[in-house]
């Protein structure tokens, strides 16, 4: 048909060019959105390259849904994975949840139910349905660790006529809602169980979601006109298991974060407003970017402007929802934007294939896309009300759940940036350290910190005294003593570093041996090393030991430890090619006073001099 031949050959060859996958997907997306029909999907299904690997998706459904297969194959390609759907239907969905062994070959399971499958038309209570689903989902999880995606139940809206606004709390609508809450509860409680928000997809799609004739004639509940949207929703959600999330959004400023050009219109002349169109469109977009940052996406600026002009907007326009410091890197200059992206990729230590670049200018977008095909480029267009949809259309930022690390990521980059900036402004190291307001807390390792202790001992190569690598069980055993294994947590005025050092102290005759000492390289040069030695001396005195001992084991990358020990007064006793034994008489300590770090440690009022 004509809609296929228009984009046929260039797209077919583009789809096979591994360097231009992002561009090809974007073109395919536009073609499908322009005409989301069965023929368009069937036509493109024949054009996309054969997959090198597929993910087997078992679709358990209470209604006929096999017709979704070609749609899912195309949409999963667009979501950067390849679905190989298999279908298990009608009453078998329940048996399969109770006996999931038959799904052994699958990579994920999707469960799609319609209301009458669990709630007969004349039901007056959802109790039976909830009980049935509770048992089935729990039974599945007890026997299988496969990811399970459960579609929330959506029903055709005929009952609206019998309840209008009361559907949510009265009648069948309320019962369905209770069942959906049960499903959502499982998703929140059980690992690897997720919801598909089908009622929301149906609402957005509109009246043609359901096929009433099809349902009554052959159980095809979902209209063919809705299959693209259903397939897309499934592909994006399930795809989160199989593809990495992009990590950085590089955003333009003029006509992207605010209306107008600050260099020409001035800070007072640009368009920004919390409640007046079109300025409200830009503020709404900024608010979404702030939320995106809270989910672990780093925001960076890529703008052609004078930096002072741009910064003035952040400083003087209270309508701005984003602050200058919310950006983990900034390039506000007259250099080409592709070069800026390359620089920021190096600065953040993140590959360009984890970048999304968004700009209102089609020219800038085209230039970046041409120079850096691995970057996901989003042309925001001219209407700020559309920016949000355009930004999220590619699914680059899709994620099933936000982890604690995600939430902390932007803050952690931000803290490091602020430290760098203090460092750059400081005249010397003392100045820099004084500006950080460092605080070190030393505590015995307990169950909650044992994993981190094991991780640090296992992974630290540079500041590692003895290179001992205890197993998790050995860490547990050391922890039981209560006075042997200590962890140090560092924070400064820009944020927390977490546990950054582990020290194992072992009583020997008249000597307290430092059996292990590891410090994360993020915390070096902050007087943490000296503070830990002072803590060990304090422990030695408390345990009536007259000296500290330390055995250094030579490794390929830990020479800085021996240099440190000798600098602060440790004396060599014996030396071989493998190890050097040291001792320190506390009176010989050469460590500088701890002027810039406060230390909080057990049974020590303060070891800050």
């Amino acid at each position, binding site marked *: *048909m004509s809609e*296929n031949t228009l984009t046929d050959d260039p797209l077919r060859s583009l789809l096979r060019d591994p360097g231009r996958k992002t561009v090809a997907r974007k073109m395919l997306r536009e073609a499908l959105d322009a005409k989301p*029909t*069965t*023929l368009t999907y*069937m*036509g493109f299904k*024949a054009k996309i390259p054969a997959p090198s690997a597929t993910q087997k998706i078992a679709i358990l459904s209470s209604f006929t849904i*096999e*017709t979704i*297969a*070609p749609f899912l194959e195309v949409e999963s390609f667009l979501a950067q994975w390849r679905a190989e759907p298999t279908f298990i239907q009608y009453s078998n969905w329940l048996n399969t949840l109770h006996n999931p062994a038959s799904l052994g070959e699958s990579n994920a399971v999707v469960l799609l139910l319609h209301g009458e499958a669990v709630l007969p038309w004349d039901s007056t209570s959802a109790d039976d349905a909830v009980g049935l689903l509770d048992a089935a989902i729990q039974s599945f999880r007890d026997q299988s660790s496969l990811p399970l995606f459960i579609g929330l139940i959506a029903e055709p809206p005929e009952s609206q006529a019998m309840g209008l606004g009361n559907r949510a709390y009265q009648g069948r609508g309320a019962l369905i809602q209770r069942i959906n809450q049960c499903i959502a509860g499982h998703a929140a409680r059980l690992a690897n169980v997720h919801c598909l928000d089908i009622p929301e997809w149906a609402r957005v799609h509109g009246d043609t979601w359901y096929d009433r*004739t099809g349902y009554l*004639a*052959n159980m*095809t509940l979902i209209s*063919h*006109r809705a299959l693209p949207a259903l397939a897309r929703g499934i592909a994006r959600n399930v795809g989160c298991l199989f593809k990495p999330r992009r990590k950085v959004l590089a955003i333009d400023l003029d006509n992207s974060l605010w209306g107008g050009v600050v260099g020409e219109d001035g800070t007072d002349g640009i368009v920004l407003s919390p409640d007046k169109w079109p300025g409200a469109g830009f503020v709404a977009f900024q608010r979404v970017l702030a939320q995106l940052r809270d989910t672990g996406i780093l925001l960076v600026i890529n703008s052609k402007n004078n930096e002072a002009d741009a910064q003035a907007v952040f400083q003087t326009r209270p309508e701005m929802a984003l602050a200058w410091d919310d950006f983990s890197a900034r390039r506000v200059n007259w250099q080409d934007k592709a070069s800026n992206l390359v620089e920021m990729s190096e600065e953040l230590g993140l590959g360009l294939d984890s970048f999304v670049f968004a700009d209102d200018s089609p020219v800038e977008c085209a230039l970046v896309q041409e120079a850096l095909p691995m970057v996901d480029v989003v042309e925001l267009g001219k209407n700020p009300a559309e920016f949000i949809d355009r930004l999220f259309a590619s699914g680059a930022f899709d994620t099933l759940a936000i982890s604690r690390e995600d939430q902390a990521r932007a803050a952690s980059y931000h803290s490091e940036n602020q430290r760098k900036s203090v460092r750059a402004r400081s005249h010397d190291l003392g100045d820099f350290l004084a500006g950080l307001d460092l605080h070190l807390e030393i505590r015995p390792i307990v169950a909650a910190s044992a994993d981190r202790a094991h991780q640090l001992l296992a992974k630290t190569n540079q500041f590692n005294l003895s290179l001992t690598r205890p197993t998790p069980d050995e860490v547990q055993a050391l922890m039981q003593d209560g006075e042997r294994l200590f962890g140090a947590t560092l924070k400064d005025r820009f944020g927390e570093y977490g546990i950054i050092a582990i020290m194992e102290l072992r009583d020997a005759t008249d000597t307290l041996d430092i059996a292990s000492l590891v410090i994360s390289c993020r915390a070096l040069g902050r007087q943490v090393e000296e503070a830990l030695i002072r803590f060990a001396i304090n422990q030695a005195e408390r345990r009536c030991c007259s000296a500290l001992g330390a055995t250094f084991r030579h490794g390929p990358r830990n020479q800085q430890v021996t240099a440190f020990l000798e600098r602060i007064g440790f004396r060599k006793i014996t030396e071989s090619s493998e190890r050097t034994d040291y001792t320190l008489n506390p009176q010989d300590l050469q460590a500088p006073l701890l002027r810039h770090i406060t230390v909080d440690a057990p049974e020590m009022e303060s070891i800050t001099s």
Partner: protein
Amino acid sequence: MTPDNLTEQLKMLFATVLELPVDRITPELCPDNCAEWDSLRHIHLVSAIDETFEVTLTFEQQIEIMTFDLAIDVVTEALNGASAE
């Protein structure tokens, strides 16, 4: 739409949905002589006819499409019915 146009358009439609070359779409083509034309593809054919010709076939019309020739008749009838309204 002339009858020739309709036939050609339907041929392209069948070829795309059944993943066959256009010259395989003969008047006699039916599920019995075409392995690709299974019950699932039949639903896709009906969907594609609905979207392409903007006609909603009744359930009875849907199951009447037992050969390619009959598909032409059904679509012609549906289009005439639509224009009569």
